């Protein structure tokens, strides 16, 4: 029980401290007018990337939606990289090199996420097979 309490206080303290840092204001908007690129194609790419990048300090929000200062910094950084002529993959790599896979809202396809990407479709195949198998068996019973 005491270990729980310590853990709990630590978590609360942590949340308190982090929130103090980041929640100073929460009413600024996500993407701001001064950030937007003139070139519409480039801006579109930037928005697309931003939607796939997680805001590290908020939960389950993309930097495109977030008003956190770090999200803004990253949006500006992404835009400057696009202007430099970097490809999307290079920008994603730049970000994951620093923040890890955690920053991607769409998990990359690799060994540790294999199950995540394969299982849904495997479930689908198994489901269809179960029905077919069931039907095949029951058909025999019908006609015997």
């Amino acid at each position, binding site marked *: 029980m005491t270990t729980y309490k310590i853990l709990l206080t630590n978590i609360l303290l*942590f949340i308190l*401290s982090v929130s103090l840092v*980041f929640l100073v204001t929460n009413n600024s908007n996500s993407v701001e007018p001064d950030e937007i690129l003139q070139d519409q194609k480039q801006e579109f790419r930037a928005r697309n990337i931003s939607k796939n990048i997680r805001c590290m300090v908020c939960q389950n929000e993309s930097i495109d939606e977030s008003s956190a*200062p770090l999200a803004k*910094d*990253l949006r500006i*950084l992404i835009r400057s990289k696009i202007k430099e002529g970097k490809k999307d993959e290079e920008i994603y790599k730049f970000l994951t090199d620093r*923040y890890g896979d955690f920053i991607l809202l769409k998990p990359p396809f690799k060994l540790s996420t294999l199950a995540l990407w394969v299982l849904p479709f495997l479930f689908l195949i198994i489901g269809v097979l179960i029905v077919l198998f069931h039907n095949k068996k029951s058909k025999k019973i019908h006609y015997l």
Partner: protein
Amino acid sequence: MKKKLLKFPLIFFLSILLVFFYLLMIDRNPSEIPSALLNKNIPKFEAESLFKDKNFISSKEFGNETTLVNFFATWCKPCLDEHVYIKRFSDEKMIKVIGINYKDNPKKAIQWLKKLGNPYSNVALDKNGRIAIDWGVYGVPETFVVNPEGIIKYRHAGPVTKKIYKKINLIIEDNK
């Protein structure tokens, strides 16, 4: 075959609950994110220094000894709270501590350090937060342990508390 199939939901459900149980038991902070830079070389950077006229050049500052890197700002309340521990690293443990002043006013930072005491051997100014991004920092304060070879061995996000202070000391011991 069919009999086994009927037991499958049980096995499946219980194994999921087992994972939940494990996660509840271990001392874990759900909002903590492991650093992508662990066991990698520190990012190279150049920036203005808070104290010196010369620029802060990372390749000249690191190496030879275990170093702590502390991202801080005067506007950040938890940085104030952890300052006493950061000072203990440099004063009591004789560890080299490099500060990175995140999106701050240098004048305020100097005042702040004068008042609270300066644990930093040198402080780089990260005016627009680019250095922090290169270090994968997602909020101040954050503290890194860099070994003599210039490799990052540990990162703590959030203020250094008594518990973290002890933990960092152990890590420093291991990397001497």
